[in-house]
């Protein structure tokens, strides 16, 4: 956080963020984090480490107890409800169990990403601007769900639902994606497809993202930077390559990590190499981290 000259690049700054739940649990302890434009950060850590709380504090779904969250230089913490809603429009969120509105159609779910931009009655009668609907069609096409627009969300498979979740978040035209365990409910193959899709879309749009993920191999394979959280404090922050057994032990505790690290490295070689070619920014931004 010390390098002032890079402040223009920071899309998100979190400073000394703490959260104590009414039960007394201290979920976050003075967390400092900075995410730059176009940077994809994987947040790893054991369950209960505060990963979920951290990203929910960013868009204020959870009210932090103390500390500051700055989006593009403007402070999000302590905003009034109207201003907070405007700030939330700029942060798309993708959820673990998809959190789609199950009884609405795929198109309605996609359009719900525009709720912050239209008035109540327009949204009630589903009279979204034509350009929004066209954009929704384009995005559904992009994620491979072009024919599903009028299907109900609960008729879709897990992977398809998560794609709708991604479309909903992108419909907000966000600057930052908050992604909470996007693959926890998916099988390994679908998980990789979903992660790749998120990464591609981030690159296409120069989007920054924070991805909570418990699968270390997936994190190493896809993220540009890995942040390790333990008991509400950051204990690791670095490039995927520097996440070694010692680092994993500091995050999760003592365990034999050789298999995890080996698999990650192998996957990375297979999966990442073609992608790197299409993403010239990745190298530069990874270097900045």
């Amino acid at each position: 956080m010390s390098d002032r000259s890079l402040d223009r690049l920071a899309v998100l700054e979190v400073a000394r963020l703490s959260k104590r739940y009414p039960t007394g649990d201290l979920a976050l302890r003075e967390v400092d984090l900075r995410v730059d434009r176009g940077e994809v950060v994987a947040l790893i850590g054991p369950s209960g480490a505060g990963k979920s709380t951290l990203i929910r504090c960013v868009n204020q779904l959870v009210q932090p107890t103390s500390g500051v969250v700055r989006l593009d230089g403007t402070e999000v913490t302590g905003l009034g409800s109207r201003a907070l809603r405007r700030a939330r429009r700029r942060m798309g969120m993708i959820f673990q169990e998809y959190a789609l509105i199950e009884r609405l159609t795929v198109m309605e779910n996609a359009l719900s990403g525009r709720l912050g931009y239209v008035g109540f009655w327009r949204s009630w009668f589903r009279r979204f601007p034509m350009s929004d609907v066209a954009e929704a069609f384009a995005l559904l096409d992009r994620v491979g769900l072009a024919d599903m627009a009028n299907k109900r969300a609960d008729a879709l498979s897990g992977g398809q639902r998560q794609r709708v979740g991604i479309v909903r978040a992108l419909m907000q035209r966000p600057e930052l994606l908050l992604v909470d365990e996007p693959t926890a409910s998916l099988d390994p193959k679908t998980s990789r497809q979903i992660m790749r899709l998120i990464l591609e879309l981030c690159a296409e749009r120069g989007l920054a993202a924070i991805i909570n993920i418990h699968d270390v191999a997936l994190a190493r394979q896809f993220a540009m930077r890995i942040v390790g959280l333990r008991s509400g404090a950051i204990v690791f922050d670095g490039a995927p390559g520097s996440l070694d057994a010692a680092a994993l032990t500091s995050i999760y505790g003592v365990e034999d990590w050789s298999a995890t690290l080996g698999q990650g490295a192998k996957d990375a070689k297979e999966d990442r190499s073609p992608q790197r070619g299409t993403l010239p920014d990745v190298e530069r931004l990874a270097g900045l981290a």
Partner: protein
Amino acid sequence: MSASQPTAEAHTALAAQWRPPPLIASPVLRWSLILGGLAWLVAALVFMEINWARAAEGWARGVRFMAAFLPPDFISKSDDIAEGLLESVTMTVVSTVLGLALSVPVAVGAARNLAPRPIYLACRSILVVSRTFQEVLVAILFVAMFGFGPLAGTLTLAFATVGFVGKLLAEDIEATDPAQLEAMRATGGSWLQALTWGILPQVKPRLLGLSLYRVDINFRESAVLGIVGAGGIGATLNTSLDRYEFDTAAAILLLIILIVMACEYASGVIRKAAL
């Protein structure tokens, strides 16, 4: 967006065609339901022959009445109120216990997986009759048979309890796990043993819940049976309204609300303690 020009046009065309999905897919059904509903609404309002002048006047009267209700008067008729409440409470207790005692055998008889067909049909028809007629209608007949007083009301409530608990319990018994009943029969126990060991443990929590809920309902119902002479606080309430003693009526209504709230609270506590 990296989409090329032709696809962007295609998406715009799709967007132009898109309509929010209607609730009822078939347009014929949708419109006939809408039009039919509107026609009924108009007919119902017309046939209701609402005397708007009287109703409008009612507002002013209503305000005057509200004023007459305040402050509630618990004192001047306190003996009548106490007597009526005591009668309601006793009716509630006896009718619930009696109704439950009767509803268990009826429920067993009305469960398709336990009862032979003739018994099943007989018990089901008892349930249908009990559930069809509003308590007050039954009370009118029972008053004609048993004379005025709380006994007619008690029997009415017991009969209604049989219909309510019996039906829900029978459905619960039908939904029990047949394997447990089989297992009990396989041990060589009698039919009654199979029932108490194979079925009862499965439906017991539900039975307790229904009983507590029914206490609540029986008390509330006992408050109206007095209108047709079947005992309880309803008689006191009716008299006070007839005599334009609205402050006493307000006191009675408040007491009913308080007792129902206390019942709900107590049943919550008992449910937590027992389950």
